């Protein structure tokens, strides 16, 4: 796991300036359109606008990096496995050992996989162009309980600390002769001395933190003011409503056509 809080890259672009909720709507519009539209081939076609978005947001290199490291390996694995192993289909393209690879399964696998690609890529672009705390403060302003924002943001801060702690514990226990590499039984046994200190160490801090945030009015029900203004232009609102309309059209036309 990398030593960073999120995928966010600070840049100047239209996508970065867009309201976080608008970007979230774009993501969900991509997902709904690729999964629910009556035209199967829309999903692979949607890959083009998704990739274009990464250029609009000026994060194409980071996106390529994520795509090559995380998305494509998973997606290719699924494509190959599904093409070979899914039953059905008549037009046999070729045979591997006892498995017939048919045109129909390849087509089906390709569409499933491009839906997954569109879904995960859209999320990746959202994360690349939106700082988590920006998204959370915008959602909080719109009525999401502040506790959710607290949970997300503080988790993002705790994780790197805890990873560092885990590394220290693994190193310390190894230097005392804890066996983390040999037989299965030994590795299972190693779980307790590694997990124990980590978990109890972090749970001890919980109580202090509770007192600290309680003292800062955490459970107060008054409306809180924010230091940062997050812009929400007319363009944002139009964009969101047209995306909603687009998704509704897709769903209605699917019901209509089926």
């Amino acid at each position, binding site marked *: 796991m990398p030593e960073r*809080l999120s995928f966010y890259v600070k840049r100047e672009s239209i996508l970065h300036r867009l309201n976080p909720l608008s970007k979230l709507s774009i993501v969900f519009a991509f997902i709904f359109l690729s999964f629910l539209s009556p035209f199967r081939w829309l999903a692979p076609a949607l890959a083009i606008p998704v990739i274009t978005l990464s250029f609009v947001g000026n994060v194409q290199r980071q996106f390529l990096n994520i795509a090559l490291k995380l*998305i494509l390996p998973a997606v290719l694995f699924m494509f190959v496995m599904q093409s070979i192993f899914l039953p059905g289909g008549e037009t046999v393209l070729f045979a591997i050992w006892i498995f017939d690879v048919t045109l129909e399964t390849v087509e089906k696998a390709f569409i499933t996989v491009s839906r997954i690609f569109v879904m995960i890529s859209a999320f990746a672009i959202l*994360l690349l162009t939106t700082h*988590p705390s920006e998204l959370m403060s915008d959602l909080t302003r719109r009525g999401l309980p502040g506790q959710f924002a607290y949970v997300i943001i503080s*988790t993002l801060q705790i*994780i790197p600390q805890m990873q560092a702690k885990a590394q220290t514990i693994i190193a310390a226990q190894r230097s005392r002769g804890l066996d983390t590499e040999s037989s299965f039984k030994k590795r299972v046994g190693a779980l307790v001395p590694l997990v124990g200190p980590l978990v109890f160490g972090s749970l001890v801090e919980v109580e202090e933190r509770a007192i600290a945030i309680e003292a800062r009015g955490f459970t107060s029900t008054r409306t809180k003011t924010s230091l940062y203004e997050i812009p929400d232009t007319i363009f944002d609102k139009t964009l969101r409503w047209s995306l909603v309309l687009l998704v509704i059209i897709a769903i209605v036309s699917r019901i209509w056509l089926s």
Partner: protein
Amino acid sequence: MDPTLVITIVTAVVFGLLIAYALLVKKMNIGDDFNTMTWVLIPVAIAINLVIGQVVLVLKLPVFLDSIGTVLVGAICGPWAGALTGALSNIIAGIVIDPGWFPWFPVAAAIGFIAGLCANAGLFKNWWKVAITGFLIALGAILVGTPIAVYLFGGITASGSSFITAFLLQTGQDLVNAVLSTNFLVEPIDKISTALLSFAIVQGLSKRFLARFPRPENVEVEEGASRTQLFIAIAAVVILVLIAAFVLVNFLG
């Protein structure tokens, strides 16, 4: 009879009984699960989920163990808090590790919710009850996870257990059955060890610390369980094993 149908009915009955019993024993308002301690515990629990998942990778064990924190919150704070922890845990994993975690958040939420239900029903008080909790959690995870795997991912997902699914497909099973039986082979071991580990963690915490959470009475250890309870438990285990055996025979045979 269609095994998928049998399994759905059996699971629905089991969860119906569980919910009814949990409701009988305890009120389950959403607000009851949350106090400041809950809100502070949730981030720590999510971090525990992800970091222990990492440690398990270092040790190369054949389980995930990535929901220990979720089960912990479910047990000492309640089902709604557990469900929230699970869902947010996958969202956080999507933010920091791999966006591919997002679609699976309902499974994680179900794990936390069922852990909370079982704890409310008094199934988090000694090790064999916790093992039953683990089995029920696995059942819930299978029930929620299978439709996601089938309808979103086309049945074969990017995880290693897909090879089992692929094998079962070749033996002539239909897709839903193949995915279901793969999950039945993988999930129970993982979730039972998860539940037992969370139980061990709860046992290590002081009573004074636990008392500040919404439902500390859920995890009070029973000293010397009564004889009738033991018989009920043995019966429950026998029934569960029979169900599992029936399901497996139906799927594999």
